[in-house]
């Protein structure tokens, strides 16, 4: 069996993707930044930088710092705002063959509703992803994402304003992700993206100061992969909507692990920074992994974890 004979397409959250590898929001700009490095039409899809109603300048620098096996960021959701997004970014994105998911960031239900309405007639927008989890901004994001009722309200609001599939991106900075996931599902979410970054901080011991101007930042990269796998595993067993797995995926094997944990598709984030060709490379590596393992359809990996408890002496089955 050759790599090309592996069936790589998947259906997830109302979309059909040519392969299960998407670029994660906030790590891929508006797509165009990466077009010199790969044919974007060969990746499953891309999720844009979070778009807010009004432009946002973002946090003062220093905004990023490398940590062991990962990095912290506190960008502060800097973005061009809906109006400029529609005027300057959308025309180029609309010409892409790959699926474009627009990540939305609102600080109120009204803003989420206005964002969803503003994108409703954009044929190039395949789905909406709601950022209810970004931990970088002092108000807004975190408040929605940590409370099941708020997550449900935002999801319902956007579903009412839009006919497009709605993905809800969940934060790992909660005690019980299943509770939040069920709230989003009950409110009509078509899929869940998880996980967003873990809240962390870095300190310069010589200066005796936090490294990031925002003090706290979101931890991403291979350092968080075990947390992501655990949460995808927990949630995908508890809800009947697809989970899109992300958190530290650097290789095709990492993607396979997420799919075995229960993800129907994956997003690649920090890897885009350490190698701008990552999304395509990971999609190819995932196909190669399937070939090696004698798997003919990549979707056969989904939830395929062999986790039956082993027999224990003295316990009758």
């Amino acid at each position, binding site marked *: 069996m050759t790599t090309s004979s592996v069936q790589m397409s998947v259906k997830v959250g109302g979309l059909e993707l040519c392969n299960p590898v998407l670029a994660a929001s*906030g*790590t*891929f*700009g508006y797509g165009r*930044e*990466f077009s*010199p*490095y790969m044919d974007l039409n060969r990746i499953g899809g891309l999720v844009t930088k979070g778009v807010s109603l009004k432009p946002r*300048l*973002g946090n*003062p*620098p*220093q*905004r*990023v*710092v*490398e940590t*062991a*096996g*990962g*990095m912290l*960021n506190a*960008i502060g959701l*800097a973005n061009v705002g809906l109006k400029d997004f529609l005027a300057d970014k959308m025309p180029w994105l609309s010409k892409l063959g790959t699926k474009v998911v627009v990540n939305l960031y609102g600080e109120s239900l009204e803003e989420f509703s206005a964002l969803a309405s503003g994108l409703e007639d954009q044929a190039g927008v395949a789905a909406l992803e709601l950022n209810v989890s970004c931990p970088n901004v002092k108000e807004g994001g975190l408040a929605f994402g940590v409370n099941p009722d708020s997550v449900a309200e935002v999801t319902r609001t956007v579903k009412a304003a839009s006919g497009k599939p709605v993905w809800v991106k969940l934060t790992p900075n909660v005690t019980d992700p299943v509770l939040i996931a069920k709230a989003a599902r009950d409110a009509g979410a078509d899929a869940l993206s998880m996980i967003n970054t873990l809240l962390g901080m870095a300190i310069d011991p010589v200066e005796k100061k936090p490294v990031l101007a925002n003090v706290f930042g979101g931890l991403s*990269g*291979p350092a968080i992969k075990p947390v992501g796998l655990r949460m995808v595993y927990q949630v995908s067993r508890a809800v009947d909507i697809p989970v899109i797995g992300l958190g530290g995926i*650097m290789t095709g094997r990492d993607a396979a692990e997420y799919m075995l944990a229960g993800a129907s598709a994956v997003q690649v984030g*920090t890897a*885009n*920074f*350490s*190698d*701008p*060709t990552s999304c395509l490379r990971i999609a190819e590596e995932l196909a190669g992994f399937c070939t090696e393992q004698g798997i003919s359809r990549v979707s056969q990996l989904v939830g395929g974890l062999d986790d039956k408890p082993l027999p224990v002496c003295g316990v009758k089955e």
Partner: protein
Amino acid sequence: LYQTAEVIAQRAVGPNTNQIRLEARGVAIKARPGQFVMLKIGETQDPILARPFSVHGVHGDEIVLLYKVVGKGTRLLARVESGANLPIWGPLGRGFDLDIEQPVLVAGGLGLAPIRFAAQRLKELRTPFAAVYGARNNSELLLNVAGQGWEIMTDDGSKGRKGLVTEALAERLPLSRGVLACGPLPMLKAVARQCLEHQVPCQVSLEAPMACGIGACLGCVMPDTSGGYFRVCQEGPVIDAAQVDWDQL
């Protein structure tokens, strides 16, 4: 733009300071002084990010980088042997505009990296220029790297003239039509202020912690005079000093 560069050789040129030669044709044929590359030190997940380096010189299909060993990434780079292949992408960002008469080049410390490349190109263009190069002391000076005829300044007077590069620049500013500068932030601030006062256009090459180098992560921003931020990797690293809000730095 993304390729593998073969390490040809590296050598120490000063205390904890190395020059590394890489075969990277794609970068070499396009690089302009002031532009940079992202170099990943092997396929490690720790460190995970590539490092930005100014292009220091170009010879045929080879590029030269100048770097100081300051952290995990550069310590690893210093141990890389000839023949190793490293992922690289570039050239990136905006370089110096060299289309000026009688430019004055100002380099402080490792700021020599892009300034030396600018000097190389100016020579090829047969544009006469003056160059000032300063370091803390004699042992920090990379005299074998700087060009002949450059004015040398040291903080302690252990080589060249005693004083800061700004003192040498002050003497030359009245005759200058433009300044190209790279060095530590306090030096760039002082040079920018001097040039603004004398209404001499000044291009500075900046550095900032960055993740991607291609304008996506928005990590490398600095404040601009319009009240917002610019990305060092896209609107820089070389930028008109008048566009930078120095008071916030």
